[in-house]
């Protein structure tokens, strides 16, 4: 009776979690749902006289494998949700058909079978003096060869992961000397002039003055200049006004370019 209740509760939970795994938009939720399924299954193992497997399930799956999944998820980035729009024609339809059909086939196949009352593993367990010793006996006697091969498999997998994830440095790490040289051979050895240098006001709307007293076009804040223009405020210094106009014109031209490109893209898309 206790097993029946446990089964039904966990069956509902695990199927819902499995569906959640498939349908949730965010990969992290999927991972958590998978964790739920695994834990439920661990309990079901325990109910079915497999305490060792239940422990391994929790340690290996929920502990190691799930952590690995989450780790990679974090590495890849969790900020964006997956788009759920299907791009392959008919894929979702046929996937549904195939999934439902397969489920129906398996379920009907299993449901139509008539089973004798379960024998239970109690006899074998008692003989060896516990579940773990019984399994150990099997592993180290009849299945020892397969067991050794799994060890080789695990080593290979570890090596493979290292080889795959390793990134070879193709150029030496840049030293301070290299960085300095790059800076001085570049177009701008000095830092860009901050607002307010040689200025009377320490404010972002005040452009920097070059040592000769003229305005540096590189220090004009585009956003503020646009705002000023929209508000009808004009700089008093004609030289500065010309510079501001130059910067704004450049900006406008760039925007028009972008707009034109986007329009062209839309045309293409049509």
């Amino acid at each position, binding site marked *: 009776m206790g097993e029946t209740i446990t089964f039904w509760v966990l069956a509902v939970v695990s199927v819902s979690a499995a569906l959640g795994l498939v349908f949730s938009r965010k990969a992290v939720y999927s991972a958590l749902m998978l964790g739920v399924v695994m834990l439920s299954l661990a309990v079901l193992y325990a109910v079915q006289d497999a305490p060792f497997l239940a422990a391994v399930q929790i340690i290996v799956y929920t502990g190691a494998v799930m952590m690995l999944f989450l780790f990679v998820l974090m590495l890849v980035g969790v900020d964006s949700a997956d788009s759920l729009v299907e791009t*392959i024609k008919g*894929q979702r339809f*046929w*996937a549904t058909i*195939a999934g439902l059909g*397969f489920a129906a*086939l398996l379920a*009907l*196949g299993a449901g139509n079978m008539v089973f004798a009352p379960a024998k239970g593993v109690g006899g074998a367990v008692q003989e060896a003096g516990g579940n773990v010793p019984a399994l150990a006996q099997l592993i180290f006697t009849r299945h020892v060869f397969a067991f050794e091969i799994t060890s080789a498999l695990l080593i290979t997998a570890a090596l493979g992961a290292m080889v795959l994830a390793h990134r070879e440095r193709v150029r030496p790490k840049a030293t301070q000397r290299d960085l300095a040289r790059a800076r001085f051979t570049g177009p701008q050895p000095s830092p860009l002039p901050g607002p307010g240098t040689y200025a009377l006001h320490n404010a972002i709307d005040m452009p920097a003055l070059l040592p000769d007293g003229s305005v540096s076009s590189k220090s004009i804040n585009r956003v503020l200049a646009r705002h000023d223009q929209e508000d009808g405020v004009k700089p008093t210094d004609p030289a500065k006004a010309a510079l501001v106009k130059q910067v704004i014109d450049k900006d406008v031209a760039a925007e028009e370019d972008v707009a034109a490109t986007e329009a062209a893209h839309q045309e293409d898309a049509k």
Partner: protein
Amino acid sequence: MQSPVEIVQHSGGVIGVSWLMIALPLLGAAILLLGGRRTDRWGHLLGVAMSLAAFVVAVVSFVEILGLPESERRRGIELYQFIPGVADMGLLIDPLSISFALLITGVGSLIHIYSIGYMSHDPDRRRFFAYLNLFVAAMLLLVLADNYVALFVGWEGVGLASYLLIGFWQFKPTAAAAAKKAFIVNRVGDFGLLIAIFTVWTTFGSVAFGDLSGATVSGAIGSGAASQGTITAIGLLLLLGACGKSAQLPLQSWLLDAMEGPTPVSALIHAATMVTAGVYLVVRSGAFFEAAPTAQLVVTIVGVATLLAGAIIGCAKDDIKKGLAGSTMSQIGYMMLGAGLGPVGYAFAIAHLITHGFFKANMFLGAGSVMHAMNDEVDMRRYGGLFSVMKVTAVTFIIGYLAIIGFPLLSGYFTKDGIIETAMEHNQILGWLAVVGAGITGFYMSRMIFMTFFGKKRWADDAHPHESPSVMTVPLVILSIGSIFLGAFLILDNRFMKFLAPAVGAPEELPAFHFVSTAGLATLALVAVGAAFAWFRYGAAEVPQVAPRGSFLTTFARRDLYGDALNETLFMRPGQWLARIAVFVDNRGIDGLVNGLAATIGGTSGRLRRVQTGYVRSYALSILFGAAVVVGALLYVGNM
């Protein structure tokens, strides 16, 4: 009836080294061809020396043969055993082959000498002499070989040399085309010869002349080993081969075009030697023809038809060389007629062949001398009155002319009348047709003489005729001396017939030569009429510089009796159609099938590959479907 004697195997004396006759010119050709430009300065001298050396060997061998008793005059020389007892290579030195060897090397040497002068301005003179030497070697192999296979090698060798020499000025499209034509027409004949050799091999198990005597052939027919039909077929196939090489009907069309080659080539190959190889073949294969009267009759018919056709063509040609070529066809027709008349005919045919070799080479070289003087003009309508300008050439040419028309006591008189009389005894119709042919010969040869050497001068404006250098005239003189005396020497007292008897057999009763006979008188009369007619038309009357349109018969003759038109209609056009149909079937049918199949597979694949979308989820979907099918099948089977 006296049969040919057995062949005696022999290795001593000059006859033992008679292979030098072939080897020396071959060596000359090899040196000149492989040596290239380095041999340009002395190449022609080497060529002449090799040819003369072969002549010397031939003469000494001939003397040795004369010194032997009649029963030992056929000498076999084994060179090597290719497959012992099956395919031996050897030479056969007997009166027949040594006669040919003397003609080839003798006349050949004279023509070599003449060529030094004739080709002196040609930058490729060395190559010319190489080809001439090659020809001499191949021709000697043809006549000296002791079996059909080696004969065939020589046969093809002279074909090759002929091809190379006709097309010697290959920058002339006409010459190149003529060379190809000669080669292709000869292929037809060679096909016949090959099949004949195969048949001989399967029937008698040997291709050596020594194993194929008349007794063997009649014995095979008697024992049932070979049917009469087989022998007749062998004879006819050999005749086909002979027709190709000797330009007899119906394979005559190449000879007139072959005149595109340099004149010495026309004289040596297409008048004196190579074209007579067919006659040699028929005489050498006498054992088969004597056992197959039908084949023999066909030989005589072909001979008579060709002698008339050649004579008619010769009447209409304004090109001096083509006129002579028609004459050559005609004269070989006489030889072929003689060769179809048994042992008596053989002797006359070969005798006529030898005298013809002299007087026709004489006239061809004379024609070459005239052309040399007239800036290579060949149209006789632009000649005239050359007698006074080039006396040696004219006199020797006229001697050759008198010899060919059968002027009494000159060479042609004896040999041609011999053939005509033998034919008359054999078959009256053939005999009288041959007489008519002689009359036509009288006409067209006289026409040639009158148009060339007499009458008004019709020269081109820039022509300054002059006598040729002595290197060219001396051979003419030697050849003309042969043209005068050789016939009488060979025929009187049946000298040549007795000499040939060990090789080809002889009748019991040797024929006496009648100076006065019905056929002889009729021939002389007709020749006189023909010559007189020619005098009225071309000697006394004005010769127009441009050929008048002429009657139907003239056009017929000018067009070579429509031989080319016939070949084109019968063979070329159906061949072209066949080729076009084959191309069509290949392009549309076979290619269509293949390409269609390829296109079908290609198109299907092109659509099928769209299944490979690159989306791993699509693949997974098909895997899941597959798994579902497997599970379904398992359940179904389990529930059965």
